[in-house]
């Protein structure tokens, strides 16, 4: 049973890393923090694999390591290096205290919702499940609260991580192709987003979401 306890403890680290990511001043720092969070995610998958006996999770942890710990941060760091954005840190739309308060509200709500679930696979890992659902919504908070387009891309990645962990917790025996499909998709989305961000930076000259306001009504 101790394996599940470790999973639950590790999952709280997901919340902490995402908060640090949202509050990070520069997108470059955010990339490193994202890599750290992805490492926590890999650790959760491995622990869960040994606790539940679902060995598919080991291969899953490898794909997660390659895509989330290495590829995603590398792609974004590469893009940032190529673009050399003038103004790296933009003040967020929401004050940090508001963001933290929102996060707390999200976590509490998610704990309440998850407590009603009766699925047998979920019983041992309810705290982690609540955290993964919360992570999903924290990702949205990141997208809403940040002006930097790069930070918004990370917000999407946080959402993706949230659904990833939920799937691992609820259906550890999921077929390999499912994991690979989701992981590939996440990387593809990040690549397309980075291409679009680069094209916008070249044409419009900004990575500030507040500047994207020409179209209205």
């Amino acid at each position, binding site marked *: 049973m101790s394996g599940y306890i470790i999973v639950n403890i590790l999952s709280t680290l997901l919340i902490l890393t995402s908060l640090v990511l949202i509050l990070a001043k520069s997108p470059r720092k955010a990339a490193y923090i994202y890599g750290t969070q992805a490492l926590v995610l890999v650790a959760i998958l491995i622990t869960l694999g040994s606790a539940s006996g679902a060995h598919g999770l080991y291969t899953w942890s490898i794909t997660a390591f390659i895509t989330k710990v290495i590829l995603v941060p590398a792609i974004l760091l590469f893009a940032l290096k190529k673009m050399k954005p003038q103004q790296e840190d933009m003040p967020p739309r929401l004050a940090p205290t508001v963001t933290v308060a929102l996060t707390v509200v999200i976590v509490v709500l998610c704990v309440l919702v998850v407590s009603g679930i009766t699925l047998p696979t979920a019983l041992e890992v309810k705290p982690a499940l609540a955290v993964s659902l919360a992570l999903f919504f924290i990702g949205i908070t990141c997208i809403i609260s940040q002006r930097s387009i790069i930070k918004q891309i990370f*917000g*999407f990645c946080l*959402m*993706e991580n949230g659904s990833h962990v939920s799937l691992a917790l609820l259906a550890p025996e*999921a077929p390999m192709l499912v994991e690979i499909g989701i992981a590939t998709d996440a990387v593809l989305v990040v690549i397309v987003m980075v291409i679009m961000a680069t094209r916008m930076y070249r044409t419009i000259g900004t990575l500030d979401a507040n500047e*994207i306001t020409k*179209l209205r009504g």
Partner: protein
Amino acid sequence: MTLESTLLVIALMATPFAAALLTAVLPSKILPHWAYEVLHAFSLTIVCVSALYLAITVVLNGENVQALGSWFYLDALGAVFIFLIGAVGLLAGWYSLPYLRHKVGNDTLSNRQVKHYYFFFNLFIFTMLVAVLSNNIIMMWVAIEATTLATVFLVALYNNRFSLEAAWKYLIICTVGVAFGLYGTLLVYANGASALADSSQAIFWTSLVGSGAPFDPLLMQIAFVFAVVGFGTKAGLFPLHTWLPDAHSEAPSPVSALLSGVLLKCAVLIIMRFYTLAVETLGSGFPQMIMLIIGIVSVIIAAFAMLMQDDVKRLLAYSSCENIGIVALCLGFGGPLGIAAALLHCVFHGFIKALLFCLTGNLDMKYGTRELSKIKGVLQVAPATAVLLVIGFVSLAGFPPFALFVSEVLAIIAAVVSGNIIVVVIFGLVLTVVIAACFRAISKMVLSKAPEDAAKGEVGVFALVPQILLVVVILWFGVAMPQQLFKGIEAATAIVLQEEGNVLLEAPVIKDLFDE
């Protein structure tokens, strides 16, 4: 299920994919334009013919087709949508040829951009076909996400500030929205994996539906809400519809036709699949309430926005939100009439919106603008376009004898039968706003006086023929719906409701019609 149908399903998906790959590898520097055009036309013709053949066989024989294990699956419900993809895909694809030639002619697009266009257009068709034919629920989601990735570059084709902003908004809002869809899908899968006897089957829609397995109701509720918000984003439903007017107006006109006419409907199909699952576990109350609320809010917001627009493509884009809202409302009314109205509305609106967006392409070629205040005297400048434009807007307003009239009347009957009187009154009032918006557009563009310096002349027969064909379809479906379509809609309705037999012929009101 015959082997040839299985092979045809695979060929249906493989053709546009292969055409896209071939377009990508062919060198644009050496090859002339027409090489891409031939490839493009060839691929879309094959898609259209095989989609029509498959749809009609599935509907008439009442047999489903499976391919590649159970990963892909075609039933009557899917048949309705591959018909739409095949037919509208071919006509919008056809219109692309003269439209792009014009754009190359006035130096708006380079050879490379034309190549990109045909590449992504075929990829777009491919991803929609995969989404509609998937039986694997994760694959369904992957395909819907892939439609976003394939179309975002089409929206950004002109590479100017406006189209890039629209594409970015489209990308970020839809991927975030569709992430909800993923979460919902995963919850359904996890639910199925522990409830079904054979957990490896939990990934297939056909095994989940009608299994009678004890799903966790709370999990199913969350999953349904997530799926509706998620795929509803892609369908242009409130609250995450804000990307749609930007993306659909900034995209090249034939792409707008396909985005509004077909892609939104593919997302609706996925919602319908989840709707069926949710109704089975939760009963019809909760799913219908969700669809009613989202539907009526979408209709109201979009109808008033239509009235405010000075950009004809934005007006049409908001009208798409409004019409998808009507589809959601029909799902909210439920019952055989509601579901059939939803399906018919998807098909009819697909053709009408494709027509109107292609017509904005004509206007763009003649006037070089999308602003209602600058497009004047179309009747004098391009009479054929003007006539088509009037037909298009009149049918969009829901007037007989055009097709949309049938589905809207059916929607209202469904509302009354299901007892949603207040909703139907609001709905009726809002439809008058839509009519006003349509006639405002006609009077501004068609009935006004042409500017002195306007160059008179039509856009060319080759561009007009696909539009005339669309009008023929709209009129044909409005006055004499083909037997195959009726049967297809009936069989699809039966699948959504998970009932057997002639659900439509035995439905209230319709039953009385046929009894006499």
